[in-house]
C-alpha cells in the first residue's frame, strides 16, 4: 500500500527526521490560508500515488498566499498518470544547496533490506542508477543486528564531506531504517535529502510503501489508505479479499492463483481475445469469494463473456461451484459464462453445476477458445 508524501512525512517526523513543516489542503481556499500562515514563498505539491509529479506540473512555487490559491486551483483536479489530484501539500520553500538520495528497499538478490545513498540525488536518480551506478552506495542490512551505527556513519560520509552534516545524515539514516523496520515497509525513500542554504539537512520529499502482508499488524497504517487513488472495482475486490486489476478487454477472467491467472490472460490473448481483468480468488476459497468476484466482473460493461479457470489444490472446486450457483441465482448473468474446473473435489463441483444447468469443461485451451469466441460475438462458434 502506498502512502502519500504528507503521510510519510508525518511518520518521518515522529522518528526524528528533520522535515520542513507542511499542511494538506483540499481546496484552493485552504491552500491560501496555509500559505498566509507560513508567510513567504511556499511550494504546492500534488498528493498522488505516482512519481513524476513535478514533470507533470503537479509541483509549483507560489510567492504569495493569493498565488498559492491560484496554483492550488490548477493542481487540484489535475490528472497525473490517470490519478486525479484531490489534495495538495503546502510547505514553505527551502533554499537548496545540495540534493542527495536516501532509500531503503527489500532486495530479492541479497534477501535483505538494502540502504541506498547517493550524493547525486533529485529527480534524475534513476538515470544516475542506470548510467553511473558507482555513485550509489548500497548496504545490505543483516536482519539479526539491524543497521549498525558504524554502517550509518559510513553511508553518511559517502554523502557529505562536512563532518557536522555527515553526523546529521548518520542520524537520519538510522531514523529512516527505524521507520522502515517499525512500519513493515517494503520501500522508504527521501529524495531529495537536501542541505539548505543555511547548512541544515532536511527531508524535502518522502515516499513509503507498506507491505500489504503487514497491514493486519498495523491497523494505524491501514487507516491511512486513500481509496480515491484506486479504481472502485479494485477497492471492492480488496475488501472482498480478492486480487483484481481492471484491464481493457472483454473476457472477464476468474482464476485461482496469480500464475495461472496470468497464464489464462496470456492464453486469452494467444487465441485472439482480450482479457477484461486479472482476478485471483486466492488460495483458501469460499463460496462468498466467488459471489463477490462475479459481482465485480459483471459490473464491468465491457465484459462480453466470463471465463472461470479453477484448478483446485487448496481451493476446493465445490466451493467455487456453490459460489457460482449462489451468485447467479441472486443475480442472473447477462453474459455467457464458460466454466473450466478440475482438481480438489471436482466430482462434487461438476454434480452441483450440472444440477443447476451448467456444463463444466476440463481442458484449459478449449475453455479459453470458447470464451474468446463468445466474447467476440461468435455465439456457439468455437475458434
Amino acid at each position, binding site marked *: 500500500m502506498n502512502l502519500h508524501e504528507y503521510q510519510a512525512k508525518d511518520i518521518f517526523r515522529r522518528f526524528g527526521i528533520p522535515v520542513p513543516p507542511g499542511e494538506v489542503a483540499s481546496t484552493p481556499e485552504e491552500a491560501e490560508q496555509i500559505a498566509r500562515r507560513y508567510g513567504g514563498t511556499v511550494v504546492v505539491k500534488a498528493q498522488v500515488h505516482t512519481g513524476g509529479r513535478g514533470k507533470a506540473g503537479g509541483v509549483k512555487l507560489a510567492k504569495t498566499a493569493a498565488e498559492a490559491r491560484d496554483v492550488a486551483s490548477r493542481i487540484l483536479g489535475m490528472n497525473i498518470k490517470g490519478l486525479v489530484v484531490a489534495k495538495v501539500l503546502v510547505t514553505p520553500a527551502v533554499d537548496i544547496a545540495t540534493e542527495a538520495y536516501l532509500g531503503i528497499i527489500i532486495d530479492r538478490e541479497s534477501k535483505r533490506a538494502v540502504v541506498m545513498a547517493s550524493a547525486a540525488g533529485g529527480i534524475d536518480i534513476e538515470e544516475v542508477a542506470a548510467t553511473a551506478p558507482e555513485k550509489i552506495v548500497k548496504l545490505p542490512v543483516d536482519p539479526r543486528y539491524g543497521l549498525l551505527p558504524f554502517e550509518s556513519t559510513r553511508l553518511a560520509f559517502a554523502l557529505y564531506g562536512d563532518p557536522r552534516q555527515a553526523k546529521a545524515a548518520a542520524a537520519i539514516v538510522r531514523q529512516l531504517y527505524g521507520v522502515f523496520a517499525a512500519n513493515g515497509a517494503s520501500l522508504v525513500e527521501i529524495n531529495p535529502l537536501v542541505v539548505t542554504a543555511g547548512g541544515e539537512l532536511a527531508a524535502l520529499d518522502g515516499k513509503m510503501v507498506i507491505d500489504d502482508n503487514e497491514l493486519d499488524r498495523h491497523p494505524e497504517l491501514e487507516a491511512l489508505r486513500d481509496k480515491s487513488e484506486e479504481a472502485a472495482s479494485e477497492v471492492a475486490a480488496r475488501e472482498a479479499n480478492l486480487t483484481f*486489476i481492471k484491464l481493457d478487454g472483454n473476457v472477464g477472467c476468474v482464476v485461482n*492463483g496469480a*500464475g495461472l491467472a*496470468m*497464464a489464462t490472460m496470456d492464453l486469452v*490473448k494467444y487465441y485472439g481475445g482480450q482479457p477484461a481483468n486479472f482476478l485471483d480468488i486466492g488460495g483458501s476459497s469460499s463460496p462468498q469469494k466467488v459471489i463477490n468476484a462475479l459481482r465485480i466482473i459483471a459490473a464491468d460493461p465491457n465484459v462480453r463473456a466470463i471465463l472461470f479457470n479453477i*484448478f483446485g*489444490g*487448496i481451493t476446493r472446486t465445490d466451493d467455487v461451484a456453490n459460489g457460482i450457483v449462489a451468485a447467479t441465482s441472486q443475480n442472473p448473468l447477462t453474459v455467457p459464462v464458460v466454466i473450466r474446473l478440475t482438481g480438489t473435489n471436482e466430482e462434487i463441483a461438476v454434480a452441483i453445476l450440472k444440477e443447476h444447468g451448467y456444463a463444466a469443461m476440463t481442458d484449459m485451451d478449449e475453455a479459453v477458445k470458447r470464451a474468446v469466441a463468445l466474447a467476440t460475438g461468435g455465439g456457439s462458434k468455437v475458434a
Partner: protein
Amino acid sequence: MSIFADSDTTVIVQGITGRDGSFHAKQMLEYGTRIVAGVTPGKGGQRFEERVPIFNTMADAVVATGANTSVIYVPPLLAADAMMEAAAAGVELVVCITEGVPVQDMTRVYPYVREQGARLIGPNCPGLITPGQSKVGIIPGRICQPGPVGVVSRSGTLTYEVVYQLTRAGIGQSTCVGIGGDPINGTNFIECLEAFERDPETKAVALMGEIGGTDEQDAAVFVREQMKKPVVGFIAGQTAPPGRRMGHAGAIISGAAGTAAEKLQSFRDAGIGVAQRPSDFVTLLRGRL
C-alpha cells in the same frame, strides 16, 4: 530416485487442526505420505484422525518421532516463527504453504533456517510431490504419475495445470516442486535444477516462471553452463500491464528488468525450449525425452 522427498520422508504437519491444515493432512495421508505427527500449541496429547499424535511444540514432535520434514499451514503472521521453530527442531526440510508472509519476516527466516542446516521451500507455495511416494503440501496427487520429468515452478495452480496436461499425455514426473512466488523464498530455481541434474531418474525438466525479478534469467545461465539435461520453460504474465502488482509480490516490473520478453530471450539463449502455452510442454518435452 527423486529430489527432496521420497518414501523415506516422514512429515510433521504444523497447524494440523486448522481448516487448511486438517484438510490437506487428510489428503496427504490418503496419498500415502508418512505423516508421523502434528503440531498445534495447546492441543498436545490429542490425536488427528485417531491416529496421528499431536504435540504442543516442534521440538517435542521431532524428539518423539524423528521426523525429517515439516509442512506448515499456519496463519501468515505466525508463519515466520513456525518456519524457524521447525528448523531449530532439526528437520531437514521445511515446506511453508502459507500465503501472505510479510517480506521483512522472511529477511530473518531465510538466514536462520540456513544456519540450522535445513532446506526451506516456500513460503506461498504448493509444496512438492514425488509421485507414488510422498506428497508434502497441496499439489493434487491424482494429477501426477511417476515418470522422467522434473517440474519446478514459481506458481501453484499453474504447476497443477502443466502437470495435469503432462499426465494426460502419458508423461510422468520424477518430482514436482513449487518454490513459491514471494520476493524472498527458501529455495530458488537453480537449487532445484542442480538437484534434478544429479537425480538419475530425471531425464528432462519443465520450468514455469513468472514476470518480475531475475530468478528465471539466473536459471537460464545455469542451464546453459551447468546442465546436460534438456529444459523446457514458460513465463506467465506476457500480457500483464507493466508496473502493476499481480498478487505475488515478485510479479513487479520495474523498467525493462524482469519482463516476459527479457526472460524468454534468456531462455532461448540458453537453449531452453520455450512453451508459448501451458499445453506446449507436452510436445516440447516429448521431443526431448
